[in-house]
């Protein structure tokens, strides 16, 4: 068992100058073989490993991460968590995840700072209102909290928002998910890693998968920058690099990798207590616990593996930001960055089997998979452990692109997060 984290252990350790804290996770040498290998040490990969160990008793598991754990999109997203998706399939999956988020800090004994401060989607046109009403009512009938707000209610919750009718994008109303909010992205990855490690999972960083050993259509292991590693089953959870992994395994995916950019302002005292998204004008803003405004932008159109996008995207986003929140104009951008998001034609993820036996994939979360981290890991662990998809994952199999049963979530929130 790991040393527990609590106010008491914190005080106790303070007395010994914090000299006695254990490492949050080990850094073991890779073994020759595992029952299950998870490629990708992002939130989803770590969650998969964690739930494999926790719920399926499979502990001879390694997570292989080419860089530092949590360094992919998990470490660079705008941390929005919500489950207000249009289609039943998505709503169920994301709600499953939201529920796991609600107990995650306790489950992991690691404060992931899940802050259910409420999340708003602004509507700027009648058409927006229509689409939003439809989504809100569908979510309600799925038994998930969601409500429409009038312009006056929006103004009351966010006084600094320009809700006047003369705005270029006047606010007509909004949808609100009160249980939505933000969580600390790094803490999610680290908490999962720590707990997975506690249950025996090997987390192997700086270990890039460079090839697959496939015999007669059955995967037997991987080649890595730290040597060959065998496995009975392998799960690919590499987000932006899914296409690359598929290529190494000899198949293609309906996935394209694009830059998605984000930025933060300098920290200031609390000024915004809700997460406010405005899909139509591509501005998503929340204020982190440290005080920065965290802003998400729209996706860059081109394919890229550079974790960097183009400035017009940022410019457009800030134009709209300063227009919606005229008092933000004097704040300053502190840092901007990008991640590589794996987008599917229907803006929904892919979870399930691949053309290669015993090789599973979990990808296509695109611009919005952080909120799904525990849920995705949970259903993927089930899928790998049983060799059959978790009921919530069934609709998200690759086959949907063949049958045409797409789960088109483009409308769910414009494009992002």
């Amino acid at each position: 068992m790991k040393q527990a984290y609590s106010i008491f252990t914190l005080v106790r350790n303070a007395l010994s100058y914090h000299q006695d804290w254990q490492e949050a996770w080990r850094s073991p040498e890779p073994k020759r073989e595992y029952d299950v290998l998870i490629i990708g040490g992002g939130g989803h990969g770590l969650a998969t490993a964690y739930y494999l160990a926790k719920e399926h008793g499979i502990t001879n598991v390694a997570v292989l991460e080419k860089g530092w754990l949590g360094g992919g999109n998990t470490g660079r997203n705008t941390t929005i968590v919500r489950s207000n998706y249009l289609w039943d399939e998505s709503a169920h999956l994301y709600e499953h995840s939201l529920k796991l988020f609600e107990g995650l800090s306790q489950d992991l004994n690691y404060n992931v700072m899940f802050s259910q401060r409420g999340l708003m989607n602004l509507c700027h046109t009648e058409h927006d209102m229509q689409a939003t009403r439809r989504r809100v009512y569908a979510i309600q009938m799925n038994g998930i909290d969601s409500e429409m707000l009038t312009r006056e209610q929006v103004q009351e919750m966010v006084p600094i928002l320009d809700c006047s009718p003369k705005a270029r994008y006047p606010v007509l109303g909004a949808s609100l998910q009160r249980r939505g909010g933000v969580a600390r992205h790094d803490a999610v990855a680290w908490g999962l890693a720590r707990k997975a490690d506690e249950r025996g999972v090997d987390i192997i960083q700086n270990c890039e998968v460079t090839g697959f050993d496939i015999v007669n259509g059955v995967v037997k292991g991987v080649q890595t920058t730290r040597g060959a590693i065998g496995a009975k089953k392998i799960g690919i959870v590499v987000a932006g690099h899914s296409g690359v992994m598929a290529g190494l395994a000899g198949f293609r995916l309906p996935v394209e990798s694009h830059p998605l950019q984000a930025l933060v302002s300098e920290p200031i005292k609390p000024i915004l207590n809700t997460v406010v998204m405005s899909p139509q004008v591509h501005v998503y803003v929340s204020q982190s616990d440290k005080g920065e405004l965290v802003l998400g932008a729209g996706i860059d159109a081109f394919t890229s593996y550079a974790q960097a996008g183009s400035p017009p995207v940022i410019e457009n986003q800030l134009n709209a930001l300063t227009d919606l929140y005229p008092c933000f104009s004097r704040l300053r951008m502190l840092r901007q960055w990008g991640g590589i998001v794996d987008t599917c034609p229907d803006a929904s993820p892919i979870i399930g089997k691949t053309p290669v036996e015993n090789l599973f994939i979990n990808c296509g979360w695109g611009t919005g998979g952080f909120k799904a981290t525990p849920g995705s890991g949970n259903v993927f662990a089930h899928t790998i452990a049983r060799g059959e998809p978790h009921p919530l994952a069934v609709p998200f199999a690759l086959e949907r692109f063949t049958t045409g049963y797409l789960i088109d979530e483009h409308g769910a929130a414009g494009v992002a997060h």
Partner: protein
Amino acid sequence: MSQTNRLNTGGRIDRSRVVTFTFDGKSYSGFAGDTLASALLANGVRLVGRSFKYHRPRGIVTAGAEEPNALIQLGVGARTEPNTRATQIEIYDGLVSESQNRWPSLTFDIGAINSLIHRFIPAGFYYKTFMWPAKAWLFYEKFIRNAAGLGKGPTAPDPDRYDKLYHTCDVLVVGAGPAGLAAALAAGRTGARVVLADEQSELGGSLLSESSATVNGQAASAWIADALRELGALHDVKLLPRTTAFAYYDHNAMSLVERLTDHLGPTDGKPRQRLWRIRAKKIILATGAIERPLVYLDNDRPGCMTVSAVRTYVNRYGVMPGRRVVLMTNNDSAYRVALDLANAGVTVPVIVDLRAEVTGPLAKAVREKGIEILAGHAIAKVHGEQGVKEVEVARLSDDGKSVTGSARRISCDCVGTSGGWQPTVHLHSQTRSKVKWDDALNGFVPGDTIPGQNFVSIGGAHGVFDLAACLTEGHVAGTTGALEAGNGGNAGSAPTADAAAEEQPQRPLWIVPGEKPVGQGGKHFIDYQNDVTAGDVMLAHREGYRSVEHLKRYTTMGMATDQGKTSNVNALAIMAGLRNVDIPSVGITTYRPPYTPVTFGVFAGRDKEDFLEPIRKTPMHVWHEDHGAKFEPVGQWHRAWYYPKPGESMHDAVNREVKAVRTSVGIVDASTLGKIDVQGPDAAWFLDMVYTNAWSKLGVGKCRYGFMCGEDGMVFDDGVTSRIAENHFHMTTTTGGAPRVMAWLEEWHQCEWPDKKVYFTSVTEQWAVIAIGGPMARKLLGEVCTDIPLDDASFPHLSFKEGTVAGVPARVFRITFTGDLSYEINVPPSYGLHVWRAFMQAGEKYGITPYGTEGLHVLRAEKGYVIVGQDTDGTVTPQDLGMDWIVSKAKPDFIGRRSMLRSDTKRPDRKHLVGLLTEDPKVVVPDGAQIVEHLKDRPPMTMLGHVTSSYWSPNMERSIAMGLVKNGRNRMGQTLYACWENNRVKMKVTEPKFFDPEGARVNG
């Protein structure tokens, strides 16, 4: 007494101009040319702020952009600005500044309690606690949020305005130190188009802080003046002081921000800042280097600063940062500063040198001045809570890991330290080019340049500090850069300087040991602003956060507003020591834009409010405006939505408009519909491919409605297309879809079927479109147009004619979106208003009623006509809409055909568009309501689909709705429930045709 610490002579400030300002409510004076930092120091103010987490008293550490501590709340009211660096604020009369993150006052701050409980709140403490009870985080969070955040944001709209522009040049030089100036001179002389930008108010870089350097045999300041004069006279050279290059984007695009009036204080009228988006053929990075402070015990006491800051304050601003200045160094640069201090009359009680032995000409000169050098010593402790009072200096053990022997107490009010220099590689790194470790320099220098970018780093920015070498490098870079950009003119000769004195190597000692073990009482600060100490780095290491990126995120090291300019290398070097690996294998965190924080407003420039996005207006817009129309945005267009008369609600107005069309005649502005002219021998073939129905046999003069599908078989646009001539079609599209359809056609043509002979031209705005409809439409048209026979036989439904309407040449289409007899009259837009008025005038006797998009939507819904984008959402096939008839069975191929054969798309029980009638005809359900077959007490309930369109139909005198319902066509007559919020309403499934189901009314 004011300006107690101002030297009597020297510096570049203008002593003839006294400037008064306030700090924390107290009034001070300084001189023009001062920064807020230099002016405060001149007034003996050392304590200027409180740190982020522990609320420790903090002073000014640097003299530049790298300042981690002296963050100020500048200005008041709507113009207040948090977190500005005192070292970069130029003072002006009336400047108001305040310290941040303290309450009730800077000297007595309640928050400093955090400093007392500091032991309980090490790096990452919040991850370990506040977890119980499970729902309480929101409660704890409130306190944490209030404690964090430094300054306060304004809450009123920004009264200032901003400017932004594009610029292209041959050579962009960033940094106007000796290297940058030499580069700009060389490039400028060749005739190249040059931009020279520097973030400081004066160009000259580190030379401005020099006391004795000479260039071309003259004093550095004289050379700078000459150089600027020469550059100023060159026509194609732009000098941009107060301009920070903050982002280096792909393909040599650089973004810079110029501060135009910040140094003047609030000014109305002029833009405050300007965004330069420069594309340069060659970029020369001459951004110099940043000095690292040493990491020693209690190194955050106000009065502790870098040696280069000490030098800048003394030489450039004529300010004594202290009266007794102790210097501690691991390299020679402190010696030059000691000499400057001595010359200025400031006492330097000792130089503490971490190196065991100190030799060389500089040390000799210092000793000659009577300054004591304590080699192999370290500052083991600093006294003075709110300002340095005294240091304890002790001998270093040989391994440098501890101090030994008894400490000597030396009183002083300022400590300058130098831990060596880190080249300012930020912009280089932003291009994703690598950096490499330089052992001699103990810093990262630029590595290879990433392909696709064309730039070079020179001078301090790539680790070359010798003035003569900087000048030569600048000259060479300027000359070659200009040449690469096609300028072969004479670059003149390079400026020269004397070679620098030989320097002794530095001693890298990343933690200067103090009287207590690191991390156990006392603090060795690395990142001042975020309160990250050497102890925190050790804790991170202990807990496994060993990657430099984990270190950063776990401790927040380098994540403050200074982005670790002074701290990153110190931190990772300490981590390297703990991990027992060399520094390059630890690596450095990623440099990202911006170099220093940039105002959001400057990105927006003037693209605000009305200018954020164009509003497209039709030729008749002014008429609609004059007649009280409410407008609805559709894409970028503003369309008349409805025309309320005084006292009318929207409901009233729409009902009146809708009824008028059915009883007499209505008129609507349909100019926004997309129109594409399609011509060529293969035009019909092409339409056959892009529409689901067949076009080849459409007669000349006839019109037909069509659906366009994506290759996935889903409807994405619709419209009526007419055959003008054998090889000539006039296509219409939805308003919002127009650009997309045009792009779609050209994409298929150019990429897939380039051999097909067809041309597309967007003619949306070539025609203003006025649609009149209703029983009186024919009569009315007949009065305004006399040269087109309007009887059914000559001009049947779904055909078009050319003629003259109200004296204007027109194309008249007999098509309808309301189900009533209607005509769409296309006229040149310059006559649009005239023709519209003509109809209004002639129609008066019929009670002609203008109607807007809302009325149009009701009218079409009464007929069950779909709106793509409302009744469809990208997941709907024509078959789903019950419009099999529009999908040709005879055509071998069209876009989307193959996808319609997939197992899911051909399922018979997909969602179908059906009519939905509420049991109670008075109830209008909202669109978006969900359709449920079996009600439960409460959700979740299984949904069959949703209401896509729902209106009050004044002509049916009941509500009408359409919806997409699973297996809907096979549910005719069934009763289902529309559900939303807590409402449950019974609805019967019907055909989606409510009014005039036989379609008799198109004939009037």
